């Protein structure tokens, strides 16, 4: 089980989830636009497929829809997981 109010960066690998609220204010305008274009939005289905590195686990590879996208944890931390 995933605890309440976790953000995408804390989601374990291979754990399907739905994106909840996204804190667009924490990202700058270019970042938000690019993330939206890649499909990151409320209600999108996501699974984390891979995490790089042994210690910090950054960046992460996220399956979103039928696409796999690499993003950094800093951006993932602005996206909540819907309960």
């Amino acid at each position: 089980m995933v605890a309440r109010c976790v953000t995408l960066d804390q989601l374990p690998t291979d754990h399907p989830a739905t994106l909840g609220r996204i804190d667009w204010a924490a990202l700058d305008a270019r970042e938000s636009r690019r993330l939206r274009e890649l499909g990151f939005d409320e209600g999108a289905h996501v699974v984390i497929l891979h995490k790089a590195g042994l210690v910090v686990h950054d960046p992460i590879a996220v399956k979103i829809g039928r696409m796999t996208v690499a993003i950094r944890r800093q951006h993932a931390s602005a996206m909540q997981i819907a309960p």
Partner: protein
Amino acid sequence: MTTLPLVALVGNPNAGKSALFNALTGSRQKTGNYPGVTVERHAGRLALDDGRPVELVDLPGTYSLDPSSPDEEVTRDVVTGHQTGERVISAIIVVVDAANLDNHLRFALELIALGLPTVVALNMVDLAQRDGLTLDPEILSRALGVPVVPTVAVRKRGIDLLKTALTSLVATTQPHSVDTVPVGDASERRARAREIADAVIISERPASLWTRRIDDVVLNPVAGPFILAALLFVMFQAVFAWAQAPVAIIEVGIAALQDFATQTIPDGWLRSLINDGVIAGVGAVVVFLPQILILFAFILILEMTGYMVRAAFLMDRMMARVGLSGRAFIPLLSSFACAIPGIMATRTIEDPKDRLTTILIAPLMTCSARLPVYAVIIAAFIPPVRVGPGIGLQGLVLFCLYLAGIAGAMIVALVLRRSVTKGRGLGFMMEMPRYQLPGLHDLFLGLWQRAAIFLKRAGTIIAVTTIILWALLSFPQAAPNSGKSQIDVSIAGHIANGLEPVLAPIGFNRDIAFALIPAMAAREVAVSALATTYAIQSNGDDSARDQTLVERLRVGWSLPTALAFLAWFVFAPQCISTIAVVKRETNGWKWPIFMVIYLFVLAYVAAGVTYWLSIYFGL
């Protein structure tokens, strides 16, 4: 300027646009530039079913008509008919990835809303099938209101049907520009795209796990970096090992050409110009073609299979430490072949400061033009002894020179990111495409285009500089029996004499001063310049002429001088073509001048430190 009807090829990145472009146009392609912007224009011709020719232009991949980079701006302006220097388009081919419909249809919907004659290429249907999707193109066509043709661009499937669809589109209307881009609601389009995708996918069995399985290994935190390192090792090994045979053949050819010139041209300045200037100079450079092609073949395969993005993923953390992102890894890797394509590849980096930093450090990656310089000096001064099992001292020195370049680049990036290119970056966001086998035709076309660029460069810049150098060395002619050597009386001799006091503190002699001037045109010319210098010095002295360049260097240079020369070339002020590309890519002289100065300073300091340290240690 041609007046053929213009058709634009548009789509998301990774939709397989370039492969489709190759399949449609074959090798009838032309690469140019849009006026005023640093975006390449790829165009080609194709004949419609009724025989009419049209021009097809491959536009930069983008996610929407709301641009965030110069590339994407061109895409918007061309499809709306507002790009300076471009005709108004007659039709659009929208390329979508069949296995990624919900995402790619968003942009397709935006394009169709423009109201231009449009056909959709439902590309990579084979990969969608492999992923367990069964699609109905009929439903898609009805939902979008435009014709849809399933294609597999890399296997040339569906190309004829696409041409047929295009034939009826181009026939119908007079081209017109679009004045208002229908903005529409992005989230509405997103919802509509998802809805259409769900309707088109008539069955979906659990996706085959190909890409996932490979990624589990190559992105593994432990195994991944090892695999990447091993791949790079194999790549650099191959560059040396596989090139030996073709290089030998080219060398034989050059020697034969020189013999032929000797036999047909009467002794005199013309023979000297052809033999010592043109053939020796250009030949010394054309010899690298095999190595460059091998390196590019590896890079192209890594890109086409989709592995390159994985490499970027693995390298992101490390690049972040010096203030860059994993995206910068791709251009930097290309720079090992040549900084020019490397710098052009930085266009995919959206963040302007990330991009500028990457451009400025790209020349520090040891490009293949430096190889000949390293190879000659190492052969002359580093003994071929073994320092460990399977490790030769010569190879080790070469490896260290590569490492010195990388370390230098990282340090420079760190400093730049904290000073001139300070600011928060865009981070790292990259779509990871599925793995696929590259089409052989696309691979060879890519290689051919690069070989052509290289040969053009050898044929123009390098030939001209070697000829100028030959002239500077040969005139004015020393009077016979005057006791003065040709070098001393020549124009080049006077220039080098002027440079000598500046270069003496770092251990460089006058011959090196000679070589450094033309090396600005292209680094590899340093070798041919030394060869030309010694060839002219030895004029009339047959025993000296028979000595190879390596032997001449061994006699003429001290070891500290040779090491300082190597250190100089790690940071060597780059070639004129690189400076020109940096000027074009940064839209001005500010950054190329900055780059030349910082590289000169680094090269001078590195050479000086190396020289005095080796003297201190008694080498």
